[in-house]
């Protein structure tokens, strides 16, 4: 049960947040169909650090960019989007 440091609210328990996706799978509206589908279905899925998008859905509602290690769960950076 991670503690996620929300830039607005401070460290809060993981239950208050919702994981959205990794940054590399965000489909921009102006991506072409091939790029868009590749972002959606072909992920890097690294063993290590990844930038993820979360929202503080049961808190301030802010969308967040987290740099998180997917092995140790250590969060090295958080910023509001």
């Amino acid at each position, binding site marked *: *049960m*991670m*503690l996620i440091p929300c830039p607005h609210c401070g460290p809060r*328990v*993981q239950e208050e947040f*919702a994981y*959205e996706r990794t940054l590399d799978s*965000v*489909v*921009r*509206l*102006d*991506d*072409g*169909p091939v*790029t*868009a*589908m590749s972002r*959606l279905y072909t992920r890097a899925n690294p063993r290590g650090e990844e930038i993820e*998008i979360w*929202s503080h*859905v049961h808190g301030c*509602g802010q*969308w967040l960019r987290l740099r998180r290690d997917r092995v*140790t*769960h250590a969060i090295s950076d958080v910023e509001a*989007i």
Partner: protein
Amino acid sequence: MRHGSGVRAGKVPFTFNGQAYWGQEGDTLAAALLANGVKVVARSFKYHRPRGIMAAGVEEPCALVTVGDGGRREPNTRATDVFLYPGLVATSQNAWPSLSFDIGAINGRLSGLIPAGFYYKTFFGPPSRWMLYERVIRRAAGLGKAPVEPDPDGYCHRAAFADVLIVGAGPAGLAAACVAAESGARVILLEQDALPGGSLLAHAVSIDGVPGAEWARGMVDRIRAAGGRVLFRTTATGYWDDNFITAVERLAEPGQVPSGPVQCLWKLRCERVILATGALERPLVFAGNDLPGVMLASAAQTYAARYGVAPGQRAVVATSHDAGYRAAFALADVGVAIVAVLDTRSDPVGPLVHAARSRFPVHTDARVLSARGRKGVLVGLEAAIGGGRQTFAADLLAMSGGMSPVLHLHRQAGGALVHDPVRDAYLPGEGRQNHVCVGAATGEGDLATILSDALCRVPVEDPLGAAGAAWPGPVWRQEARGKAFVDFQHDVTTADLALAQREGFVSSEHVKRYTTLGMGTDQGKTGAMVALAQMADLRGVALPEAGLTTFRPPYTPVTMAAFAGTMRGDHAGPIRRLPLAAMHEALGAQWVPAGVWMRPRAYPAPGETIGEASVREARMVRNRVGIVDVSSLAKFEIAGPDALALVLAVCATPVSKLAVGRGRYTVMLREDGMVMDDGTVWRVAHDRWLVTSSTGGAARMARHWTYVRDVLLDGARAAVVDVGERWAGIALAGPSACRVLTGLINAAAPAHMGLVDATIAGVPVRVLAASYSGERAFEIHVAAHRVGPVWQALHAAVVEAGGGVYGLDAMDHLRVEKGHVVIGAEADGRTTPADLGMGGMLRKAGGFVGWQGLMRPALSETAGRRHLVGITALDDEPLPEGAMLVMQIGEEPQGHVTTAAPRIAAGEGAWIGLALLTDGVARHGEIMVAWSPVRDKAVRVWVGPPMFHDPEGVRYRD
């Protein structure tokens, strides 16, 4: 029989398998059974072999019993982990018809037919074989039965924070907790036992001049005096990220009637964690090492020294290291005759060995080869001593194969394990979180060293001399003839490990799954290291190369109800009631859950069924007028300079040209092009929009709106306000709706898909002319806290016009006739707008979420996809919702019925429905069968367009 002086007073009656016994206060069930001479307690999982009590703590693999009755019945309870209370009822499991004569024991004789990997092999065979085996094995192999009655007891959750959390109130944990508490830290100390002291409870040592158990009680007083919290009968079961520990506190024993909640699940967020979890003894490997009467040496010592119980009369102690000798002294103290001490080492030295030689026959270079039983219990054993062999008559064999530090929590926390070749044990390596292991969990066996690490120089007096330093000894290995168990709970033998090896299962994770090693409720706490050593030897590699399996929470089994806590029954989730709930209640509403809301399903008149009421209500709307509560619909207001850009990104239909005061139907897509939600979009002012969507999708859409704004449009200047619960909504529908509305607002009603602001009963309202029913209709939005008078005024007016209220079922019947789709039924996450007949509505230029997904060839080709169609029943009976659409009964399905409804506009008894059908658009006119084998129903249907009522939409116009 009971000996010794440490016996507490107080007689406690209990029953085991219907037989009445007396125990003593403070006894575990296991101690009381042993004191009453009960040796066979259970039958084993697979072979139904008689099993006794092997351990004295939570690691017990064999003595699983069912405790309590009715809804309080708790199966698979370790007899060593339940403390006696008056009236305790325990029964053995897995034995039929009785513990002494168990028919399933034939499994043991046929064990050659149930080898390791039996299930895998069987399931690779022809299905007819495993169907047969499954029936037989399911009855024969297994553990206790779950109760069928509801649990009458309460469970609670508590959260707490600690500067320092200590797990384990043995000497190391007590010392660490005391130092931390007296330095001013907020301290929580957890202990799974009912008493503090851990190993001190079975050790004849004195600390600071007082007996160990008394010293431990004094330490608890000091910790509490310094403000620390000490919880007994509380097991730390999980160690999660960021120093979050879950622990289960037993406030009453299994099966006992509690005075409050029976268990409490603690959620503990801690700055620092100290794991003083101790060590567990390993068994020895020899044929028949599971016979009742064979016991871990530390357990025999505990029964003798802590409970004053002699677990046998004539004992052999078999050990591979010094600490095993302690059992011999403790057993002798309660009058057990020590027949022999067998030491695997050839030349053991040290004060303990020296003291033992003067009292007991000590044999070195001595290994147990096999245990011999009669009537299911131990009567003797054969040992190899030097080059020769010798037999001993004994009813107790106390064995010790060394100690393994308890590192489950350390591993759960991501801590590393380091193999120590001297002790042949895994010791805690570097931790990932802010935690540390202390005491026996680090592999340290010497009490004085443990205490002086935490407290400066506490005088420890051990009459037997400092023994611990030599343990844990190496895992002691030998080839065994006959059944030698390494997992006593799952009946895994050394032969099973060898078979797995021969069949190519080499990695420890594979062997575990193939043999089910360590997969019992004890998770192999006793035998795991022994099994790993055997696996290493089979492969001819060093023990660390044999690998380890994952340590998963919980450390000991947790009752499901503890996780649920108070969230059971009506408390499982919040029940959300509409602002008008009381008025619906007064009108006789029958409720139905819709998303998170309770909504009126229908308002049956006396003697009317819900189905009859719904048809009456729907017909009332078709013929005259009705009102329905639509407050739970999702509603979002979007405002600001970039509001249009945001609405365009979320909604897939054209909206830019929408004039102020106008609205239209729209759909929202997922990125893969499937329909996510639908609703209406209204331009309230030039840069201010109102968008409605489905009740069930409200939370998802709330997230989606801000995701698109913040992540996709880089923080476009548009405010998104979820006004779903701020605005109540009432839909007014029917041929007389326009007349009713104009009478109330004293103004002209808006044209279809128009919007006006007005007042009803003096309350400001917004009137949206939208129709779900297919009749001329209006949605009247009003501030939720002021909706009462508006509802009353509307209700009075519709009743006067010959109408009334209608519920969710009538609304559903009406929309099916009109061919409107519902998110979750027709739009089931696999349908595109084109599948639902809305392909032409989308903006050709794209630019909305999901446009790229729709360009995939598989979606842009419409052939082969399932399309929305309407179906009409040709037989005079209800259509089964969810039924498959087939050409002939028994054929492959080509589609399914998504919604069924009675026909409202036409005569009685006719049923219609919506369905998704492969290539459905091209198949209007075909006759198919709606077939539901599970409900044994088949109805012939005519396939047609998904529209049964007013296809031109003339009824929307005044």
